[in-house]
């Protein structure tokens, strides 16, 4: 394993979170497509999503999108303001911090009903 800096890990995560979100999106297009077959079919399938396994997966999805979005902003900022390259490490830590700040309460709210 090459011992790269934070940028390397940021990129790996960005890449695979993007792929994960894309896969979800494809599934989501298919399941939403079921609305064309009427309420019985749709409600039955979508009802599966209330299963705890899916609930946890859903939190994972939110994490992936959130991280990908925040890091995407970091990259876009650096791209349009090359002088920010000098601050790439702090920027990465900012992404991580904002991620934690937003993700923890969100995850709590989303899983709240499961916990009770």
């Amino acid at each position, binding site marked *: 394993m090459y011992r790269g800096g934070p940028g390397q890990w940021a990129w790996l995560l960005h890449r695979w979170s993007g792929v994960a*979100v*894309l896969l979800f999106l494809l599934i989501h*297009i298919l399941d939403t*497509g079921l*609305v064309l077959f009427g*309420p019985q079919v749709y409600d039955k399938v979508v009802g599966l999503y209330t299963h705890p396994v899916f609930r946890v997966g859903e939190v994972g999805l*939110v994490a992936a999108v959130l991280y990908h*979005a925040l890091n*995407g902003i970091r990259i*876009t900022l650096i791209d349009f303001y090359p002088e920010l390259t000098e601050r790439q490490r702090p920027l990465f830590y900012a992404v991580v911090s904002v991620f934690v700040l937003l993700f923890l309460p969100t995850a709590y709210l989303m899983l709240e009903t499961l916990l009770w």
Partner: protein
Amino acid sequence: MAELTAAGGRTRPAGKLELYAWLFMRVSGVVLLFLALGHLAIMHLLEGVDKINFAFVAGRWSNPLWRFYDWFLLALALVHGFNGVRVMVDDYVRRPGLRVFSLVMLWVLTLVFLVAGTLVIVLFQVPVGG
């Protein structure tokens, strides 16, 4: 000295494709930031999956603005995501034949999903009195 490899100064002319693709990723990213995070916030935080059912969708899509919002999100995310994978294919798939095949498949898939998703959003009829 002996040349052990051929991978050198070969260039693949790209016109402005790579430039626009790169720019698109950033612009669509920023738009997606609002669309996708907004969507997630509404669906998974304010509402919660247990509230999502046929009636909910029907209610939402009775407003064309929401239909447009969802379609726009779908289209943008699809193209953004597929372009992302296209870049990955360029990075990882080295065998020329396999590469072309992967890229073609990718575009076919994108088109299929885009058309399918669009059809769903356009064709969906809100049941009378629903």
